[in-house]
């Protein structure tokens, strides 16, 4: 396959950026999108140019490091992570636009790499879970109803990639935050901090400069792990419950 790539290039956080056009040839349809970018970078290095910086780690869709907005879609046209996107989703001769996540809370560090530490601070704001550490507890010591376990697991699937923020017209982190809140708030292990967790995480989300939810649903469409839009409804419910309870204390 022969492709034309239009890639966002930006030297550092303060430099202005722009789209640069590159041609790549000899791309196999079995390559992943990141392998295709590796080919581009080898080409750039050989010609003495600065390779394109992009985030990646596991390359198997579980770590949440990879990003990229591809032709306007976070993680590209398939419901998966960029590392699990394959070139067979494109056609020979295509022009592909590649941009970084765009949000005030995710400033660009270089080229396609953005600073997602705002997510870490939201997680930190959630605090800890009051559960004994050390040797694993006996599995049936704390019974969890099947439905709750499934619900928690569905939300635990969030890999913190930030595609939801990138896709949201308001740069909101509601889907990410709701995945974390719902995951821990439904479990007995997370119950003692149920109120403070949601209030503090939402407060941190606001403090980081993320936008609010207007329920356009773009986040859930972009999420590679299928976290549903109704998770946000669930977090709103938790938040209202917590605000009422804390006021009574």
């Amino acid at each position, binding site marked *: 396959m022969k492709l034309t790539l239009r890639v966002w290039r930006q030297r550092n956080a303060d430099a202005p950026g722009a789209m640069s056009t590159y041609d790549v040839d000899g791309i196999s349809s079995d390559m992943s999108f990141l392998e295709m970018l590796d080919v581009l970078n080898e080409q750039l290095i050989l010609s003495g140019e600065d390779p394109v910086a992009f985030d990646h780690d596991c390359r198997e869709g579980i770590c949440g490091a990879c990003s990229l907005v591809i032709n306007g879609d976070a993680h590209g046209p398939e419901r998966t992570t960029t590392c699990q996107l394959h070139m067979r989703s494109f056609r020979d001769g295509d022009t592909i636009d590649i941009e970084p996540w765009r949000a005030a809370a995710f400033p660009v560090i270089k080229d396609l790499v953005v600073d997602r530490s705002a997510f870490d601070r939201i997680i930190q704001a959630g605090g800890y879970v009051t559960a004994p550490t050390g040797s694993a507890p006996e599995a049936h010591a704390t019974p969890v109803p099947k439905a709750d376990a499934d619900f928690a697991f569905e939300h635990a699937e969030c890999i913190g990639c930030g595609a939801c923020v990138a896709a*949201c017209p308001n*740069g909101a982190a509601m889907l990410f935050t709701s995945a974390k809140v719902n995951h821990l708030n439904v479990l007995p292990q997370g119950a003692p901090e149920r109120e403070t967790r949601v209030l503090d995480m*939402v407060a941190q989300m606001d403090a980081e400069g993320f*936008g*609010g*939810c207007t*329920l356009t649903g773009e986040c859930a469409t972009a999420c590679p792990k299928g976290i549903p839009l109704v998770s946000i409804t669930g977090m709103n419910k938790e938040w209202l419950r917590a*605000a009422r309870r804390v006021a009574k204390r």
Partner: protein
Amino acid sequence: MARTMWDSSVGKKTVMAVSGLIMLAYLVVHMIGNLKIYFGAGEFNHYAHWLRTIGEPFMHYEWTLWLIRIVLVVAVAAHATSAYQLSRRDIKARPSAYVHAKPRASYATRTMRWGGIILGLFVVWHVLDLTTGTVHPGRFEHGHPYQNVVGDFSHWYSNVIYIVAMLALGLHVRHGFWSAAQTLGVGSRTRDRALKTLANVLALLLTAGFIAVPVGVMTGVVS
């Protein structure tokens, strides 16, 4: 509690949802009341007079009406203020657009914002038109709402303003009602279809019911 609400984006959105639902409930009653115009001047004007006497003899003349007006003004102010502040936050949170832009992403958000502004301007115009008579295009007489409405919709631009505003209302309620359910945490996977249907039905009934009045005057059924 009030501070927690107003300072949080989730809390402020709750203010939007509650104030929106208060206005929505009022609009449903208002729309049904308006349809009495089809039963003639006597019944319509009598109904308008009754609105001023609700709650008597406990309430004095027009007390209940003023109570409703105060609640509505507070709702409009709370709704518009939180809409402005939340929209400011949203726009600031996404300072640079994608080069490869997708228009669909912000459709609902944009219609809510523009629709909201149209509705805000309409509410002001509507009060100056049919409550105070300040901008009424014909001869406005207090206590004769039937004649005032007929006089109003005998002018083409009144028809245009009302019909455009009511279409904007339909779109606003369609996304707004369902959104409010999500904001208040009552939406769920199993209830989603029902809520969306209810939102569509409400939007359609409100728009059709309100538009029926200018259409009635235009077609001569109401004169």
